[in-house]
């Protein structure tokens, strides 16, 4: 998995490529936690993401809760068919903003 971050004031874009699974989710979680201070507009660019497992969903849920608590926004862009299917069956499509 590769993580690319771009911070512009309080707006953070994180582009992920590869797989967000049991092995890589802790790395993503750590990167995200280190970068979210002062961020109120988070975009997760998933155009390079192959798939996501429940470990990845857990990180997305905690990020969404953080942004909800600070009245910020979080959105996911570029998710492929597999990732979207997983968001659908788990009900995450109702919790997250997916563009």
């Amino acid at each position, binding site marked *: 998995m590769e993580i690319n971050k771009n911070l512009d004031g309080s707006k953070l874009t994180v582009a992920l490529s590869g797989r967000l699974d*049991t092995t890589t989710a802790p790395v993503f979680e750590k990167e995200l936690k280190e970068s979210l201070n002062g961020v109120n507009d988070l975009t997760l660019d998933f155009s390079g993401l*192959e798939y996501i497992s*429940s470990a990845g*969903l857990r990180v997305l849920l905690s990020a*969404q809760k953080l942004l909800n608590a600070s009245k910020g926004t979080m959105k996911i862009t570029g998710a492929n068919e*597999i990732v979207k299917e*997983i968001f659908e*069956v788990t009900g995450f499509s109702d919790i997250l903003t997916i563009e």
Partner: protein
Amino acid sequence: MADDNEALISDEIELDAQTENLPSVIEFVETFLDRVSCPMKSMMQISVAVDEIFTNISSYAYHSGIGKAKIYLAQLTDPRAVQLTFIDSGVPYDPLAKEDPDVTLSASERQIGGLGIFMAKKLMDEVKYEYRDGKNILRMKKYL
């Protein structure tokens, strides 16, 4: 380890049930799926299910100790499918006995526990569990 129809191509691996071994498991499974010309979409769905099942076994089967997990893969015909069988000798545990998580709850009410096995059930066409001869046997099938 085929059930009702004969396996054309099969393979197996045995390794310590530890999450550090997940990349090796995924590689083993995807190499096999390539051999049987599994479409990319099905391969990704199977890989997610394998991640969830192997992670579950690694986390719960042997508590804090280290034990083995065996994985058998088989290509089936009529109808064409792949069958993945996970076997461990850990504590008896039927992951299918657990109630499905409520996927309609809001972010603040959401629980992640149980989501992995639920995803495996949704992504695969069949998931069955049995406890036999001191072993947990989880068998999943995906039609190709």
